[in-house]
């Protein structure tokens, strides 16, 4: 036993919470691009006399679109609420509105099959990617 073990001491934490400060834009980008791809695939399906396989593909595309629009929203919300800090608002005064509009686009893409809305979502996430990369550089 060391002398120090006998003395009164407090504990100080050099700790690490999950998720350990790991933030990436890639999951949101991939999810947004998946939504766009699913809309394109749905649009390409025959409108007249679809086969059973066509219907099966339609359902699968809609389910995948739904899942990835939700995933995109969740990934964006993590960045918005956890990665970005009040000081980033000085660098990006439109930060809140940019995230808010992107999150709304995720919902719009769940509600509709719209090439325009899907492209808007991809652009919105690309815009957030630029902001995120700049913010990351300012942190380093």
């Amino acid at each position, binding site marked *: 036993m060391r002398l120090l073990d006998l003395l009164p001491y407090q504990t100080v934490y*050099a700790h690490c919470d999950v998720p350990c400060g790991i933030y990436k834009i890639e999951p949101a980008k991939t999810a947004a691009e998946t939504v766009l791809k699913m809309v394109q695939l749905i649009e390409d399906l025959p409108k007249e006399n679809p086969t059973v396989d066509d219907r099966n593909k339609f359902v699968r595309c809609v389910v995948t679109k739904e899942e990835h629009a939700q995933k995109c929203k969740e990934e964006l919300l993590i960045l918005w609420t956890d990665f970005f800090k009040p000081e980033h608002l000085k660098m990006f005064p439109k930060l809140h509105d940019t995230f808010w509009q992107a999150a709304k686009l995720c919902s719009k893409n769940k509600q509709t099959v719209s090439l325009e809305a899907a492209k808007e979502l991809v652009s919105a996430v690309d815009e957030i990617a630029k902001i995120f990369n700049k913010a990351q550089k300012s942190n380093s």
Partner: protein
Amino acid sequence: MIKILRVKGESMTPTVKSGSFVFATILPYLFRKPKVGDIVVVRRGKDTKNLIKRIKKIQGGRYFVVGDNPKESTDSRTFGWITKKEIAGRVLAV
């Protein structure tokens, strides 16, 4: 005025290993401001744990603290910049 602290966690490895003892005091900061490179004890609130981190950047009276082992550290990259009030002391000897 000098506290004995036992470190728990790996975020300051290799400078301070988990289980080692350090001494910390607020005294130096009564005479000068904390500076970049100082290892400090961070107390972000009454109910939060005391953390040991190193000051990496200072801007507008606020401090950006990180662990020496950034892969295993929760620090200003997660909870943002801290104020001088949240610095509970300087680590003297490690």
